[in-house]
Every structure is written in C-alpha cells, then in structure tokens.
C-alpha cells in the first residue's frame, strides 16, 4: 500500500496554489492528509499532481469577528481548535464534537477545511457546520465567494466547489447567548465515524422559552441533514416526542455493516438524549 506516482508542489501562497490547481491536469489539494493519504496509499486516489497546502502561511488562523463570530482558517488543525479558548467560548458544540473526531494523532494533522471538503456523511465537523449555520469561504481563479454550508454540502462527499477552488476559511456565528447545545454520536468504537450523530442547538428567548431550535443529523443521509419538522416541534412549547418522531421519515443509506433502519432508529434515540442535555444547558437570552 504505497502512494502512486505524482508530482508534488508545495506553494507558499494561496494564489500560487490556485494557479497550480487551475493549470495542472488532474491536480488534487493535500490538507491535513488524514483522509487523502489513506486514499493515496490504497490508490483509490491517483492524482497526477498533489498541491500541498501546508506551506501556505496564514491559512490556519482563528479570529473573532466584531459580531462575535469565529473565522477559522481552513488549515487550522483539529487539535488546535480542540484546545483553543475562543473556540471553547464561542462554539462549545465544536469542542464537544472534536473529542469524537478520530484520535489525537489524526487531530494533530487533520484540518477543519479538509474535513469539511471531504464531507463524509458521518463526520463530526460537517455536522457542526450544519448546526451552526456556518458559511464557508472558497477561493478560486476568479476570487473568493462565500457559501452557506447547507449549499456547500451538495451531495454525498461532494462539496459545491470547482476542482481549482480551495476552501480557505469557515465563518461560524457565535453560539447565541443562553443557548443550550449538545453533540452526541454513537459509534462502535471511540474515534470511529459515527453510525449516527446529532447536533442540537436550542436558542432561548428572554424568558427562557425555545425561540429557535436547530437539529442536525449525521450518518443518516448523503450529507448532514437539518430536520425542520423537529425544529418546528421544539419552538415555543417543545414537543420532544414529536421532534423525535420526525426522524422516522429519514431514509438513511444501507450498507453491508449497518442496516438503514438502525441508523434511523439511532437518530431518534440520540436526538431524544441530546435534547435533554441541551435543554439542561439552556439559559435565557
């Protein structure tokens, strides 16, 4: 299991990287490598050119915007985010999720941008992005554009990006004041991709009622899903059982290891549990 032959480029600027991706045939970017390198070693990926993003300066920052949102550079390592005080303060959902992302050794290399672009339907960070209504910034030969994550996650492991484009940053609105969050997943072993996962955000009004509910589910569709019926059921006077019942309409993928019905069943179980935790963490706006 050795990587196939490719030409390697390690540009030091974003512009150079985009130029390489635009001009070289069959070129693929390399971020943290924790998904790309196994695919290379197994020769599932056979690029002619590999454009390593690790030498580009300034792509790994974590900044706090004036409105309190976080802007996280695509090359920020998962392990850095896990330990970052501003991430803990403004997006505790992400910290909760990161503890389930692979293992310490993969988080030391793995990046947030790599995970969002890889877009595994059961991965934790895309689910966080869906729940937080993140906006990703994509750069290409014609400049940069911002895409709501819901639009970015276009299909099964398929982000809304051209081959010569790069994800450069993700903007995550700060968790609203008093909001209760919870990230839960069920995997057979610690660090595995989840069979099903749920991210919940309950945003209170001034008197502590649920003004806005966000329910995002992973592992049960081609991309991370929001569950509007459940969210509606939770607003105002929350009807938890109706929210959980909304998972019954899910149509997860079937594979050799896990039956689709079980993923659907798990989604309901995890949602019920996550709502209890999120409600207990909710305060007032």
């Amino acid at each position, binding site marked *: *299991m*050795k*990587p*196939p*032959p*490719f*030409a*390697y*480029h*390690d540009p030091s600027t974003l512009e150079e990287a985009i130029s390489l991706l635009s001009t070289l045939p069959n070129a693929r970017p390399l971020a943290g*490598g*924790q998904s790309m*390198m*196994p695919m*290379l*070693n*197994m020769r599932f990926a056979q690029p002619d*050119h*590999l454009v*390593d993003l*690790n030498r580009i300066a300034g792509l790994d920052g974590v900044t706090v915007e004036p409105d309190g949102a976080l802007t996280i550079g695509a090359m920020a390592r998962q*392990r850095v985010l896990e330990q970052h005080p501003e991430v803990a303060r403004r997006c505790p959902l992400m910290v909760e999720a990161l503890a389930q992302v*692979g*293992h*310490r*050794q*993969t988080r*030391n*290399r793995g990046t947030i941008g790599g995970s969002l672009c890889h877009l595994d339907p059961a991965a934790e960070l895309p689910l966080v992005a869906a729940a937080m209504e993140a906006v990703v910034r994509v750069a290409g030969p014609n400049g940069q554009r911002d895409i709501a994550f819901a639009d970015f996650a276009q299909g099964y492991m398929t982000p809304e990006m051209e081959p010569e484009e790069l994800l450069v940053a993700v903007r995550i609105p700060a968790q609203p004041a008093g909001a209760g969050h919870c990230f839960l997943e069920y995997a057979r*072993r*610690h*660090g595995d991709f989840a069979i099903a996962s749920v991210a919940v955000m309950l945003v209170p009004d001034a008197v502590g009622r649920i003004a806005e509910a966000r329910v995002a589910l992973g592992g049960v569709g081609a991309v991370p899903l929001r569950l509007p019926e459940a969210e509606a059921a939770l607003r105002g006077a929350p009807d938890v059982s109706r929210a959980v019942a909304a998972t019954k309409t899910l149509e997860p993928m079937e594979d050799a290891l896990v039956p689709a019905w079980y993923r659907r069943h798990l989604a309901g179980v995890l949602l019920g549990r996550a709502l209890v935790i999120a409600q207990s963490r909710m305060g007032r706006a």
Partner: protein
Amino acid sequence: MSEDRSLARRVNCVVNGTAQAAEVSVRRTLADYLRQDLGLTGTHLGCEHGVCGACTVLVDGRAVRSCLMLAVQAEGCAVTTVEGIAPDVVTLHPLQTAFAKHHALQCGFCTPGMLTTLLEFLEEVPAPTAEEIRIVISGNLCRCTGYEPIVAATLEAAAVMRGGA
C-alpha cells in the same frame, strides 16, 4: 529544476536530535523515509491507512501517523522516533521501564507507537486518569495485551515522571 523538485527533492530535518538530509522521491511516506533511508526501523507499519497507530512518531512534538505524512512534508521539522526516547544506551525512559515491569508489551510491534503517543500525552497531562489513557491510546491497536497493562504502566510512569528529576 522546479520540475525535478516536483518528483524528488532533498529533505532536511532533525531526527532524534541529529540533522539528516537525504534525497527522496516525493511520494515516499515519512514512515518509509525513516525506516528505509535512515534505517530507523523501530517505527513500524501495521496498516498504512492511518488506523493502527504503530507508525506514530513525534513531529515537532506532536504525535502523528508517519504513514499519513510524506517525507517531504517533514522538511524543517524535528522528528522523534522510538529510537530517540531512551536517554542513553544503558538507561530506559520511565515509560519504557514501566512497560517492561507491567508486561505492557508482548510481541512489541505496536509498542513504538504506543510509547510516542503516550510521550506527547504525558507531556500535556502529567497526572492522567486511567480513562484518559484509554482514550489517548484508542488510536493504537494492540492484539496481544488487552491494553490494561499499558494503562497500568502509563499510570506508574506518569507518577515517576512527576516525582523524578
């Protein structure tokens, strides 16, 4: 020249405190570079797809899978492998001593990855709980020991390292 550099290039890095420079193919993994070019065969390849953890080394102090890094990516980095853990040829590191004492290795193939992973961890968490240790080694597979001796050894090593010089 730039075309050459896209296929093979000279890599400069410091491995276990010694500066190394070697011409490598760009597709060579860091693991193969350490094992084949530098002869540091203590780093083992157990799966080559980033799951088993046997190939874990420290790159600039961080534990990483050396099967999931290219050698060229180690340019300018400091790498520590299992060969660099013991202070000298006579003395073992307290973690190594505790592994032997608790029978935390049988065939020993996973051991280098366990040691490097735990070294980074103990640096960060000098007084860990057993559960924290289980989580940190959950990315290192061992087929021989049933893991609990490794947890016991780590707890003891942590205590020695906290109290030791």
